[in-house]
């Protein structure tokens, strides 16, 4: 069932934010706003497959804000593709979460 995560204008440019986990799930998801676009992934590093990535609430990005970082072992991922470019999860990708931006500006989790 679709679920409203937040409003688009609540996410600042270059910001990442985690949501959930929702009932029945153990894994959170996170949304990154970059260059006006939104990217959403499940909070599960593909190195081990199921471990949370932030080191602190909403801390999913590197200091420069241009990569997603797993705070387990420092793997770095492209924000746009979820592809690991450095570190323990090399050759693996984050699992995207399907989100939609409604005409009224709400960010909806589809699945």
């Amino acid at each position, binding site marked *: 069932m679709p679920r409203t995560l937040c409003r688009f204008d609540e996410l600042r440019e270059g910001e990442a934010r985690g949501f959930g986990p929702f009932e029945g799930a153990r894994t959170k998801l996170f949304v990154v706003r970059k260059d006006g676009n939104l990217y959403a992934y499940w909070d599960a590093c593909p190195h081990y497959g199921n471990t949370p990535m932030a*080191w602190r609430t909403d801390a999913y990005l590197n200091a420069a804000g241009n990569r997603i970082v797993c705070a387990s072992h420092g793997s770095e991922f492209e924000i746009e593709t979820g592809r690991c470019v*450095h570190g323990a999860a090399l050759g693996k990708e984050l699992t995207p979460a399907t989100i939609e931006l409604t005409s009224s500006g709400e960010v909806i989790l589809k699945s």
Partner: protein
Amino acid sequence: MNIVGPDALVFGVDDVGACTKYLTDYGLGPVGVDANGGRFEALDGTAIVVRRRDDPSLPAPLDTNNMLRQTVYGVADQATVNAIGDELARDRQVKRLPDGAVEAADDDGFGLRFQVTVRRKLDMPGERINAPGSQPQRGINQIGVWQEMPAKPRMLSHVVYFVPDLSAGEAFYTNRLGFKITDRLVNAGPFLRPAGARDHHTLFFIQTPPYMKGCEHFAFHLGGPTELMLAGTRFVKAGYQSFWGPGRHKFGSNWFWYFNSPLGCHVEYDADMDVHDDEWEPRAAPNSAEAAQAFLFEYREKWIPGGPPPGGKAEH
């Protein structure tokens, strides 16, 4: 080679501010810390040192993007530091510093420094328990826990490396530096104890592909399991991400609770590790969830059984 144990770990990080907040909230005391980093000390003076990744004073980085730059070993005396320098100079470059310390790298490129230990002798009780059949350890009218009781890291306990070749790593630390193997998790790696330490391990290896080489985690000793539970609970409540634990390892018997960190590795609280001497016969077990821990729990919010008080409202 009378190596006492790790005095410090030096990191070159992306985000000094994040690491400063993290290590302070973890319970280490900042010493000489500014926007370029500094030293974060446990009660005995062992420490994590953080600098900017591009700080030219740092030892060379590993050929991965891991942030660990140097493991600093505390040694009993200057003669031993010199002996280590002479031993390593047989086949590698050794830097002898004006302060008497010696720097080199191990066969995998992990930066090492040996110095007369900075550890201060601690004189404070560990956790004391009362049990039938045993004299009370805490004594009459002494309470065991209160919400705000201190739970500070006392001593840098151990560091764990991801290494591409276990046998090479093992050979270097045992043959060249006099470490002893206490136990072995087959397919993960050996637990290593330097000659001047009794702790089950101050160093552990996990074999991985070369692109993962680096620090997997480090740990500080707390005063006991109650302090570990309290410190970990406070850390979770401050917004930090638990990774594994709380639980109790089998090899070493140490209680553990691991967290994610902005240092590119896990950071552990540990407590109540076994101590050994040279009489100990190493054990071996295949690495598995069963072998890694006696039990494992997961944090949850405080909760109390029972419904609302008469006339009260349920919370949900």
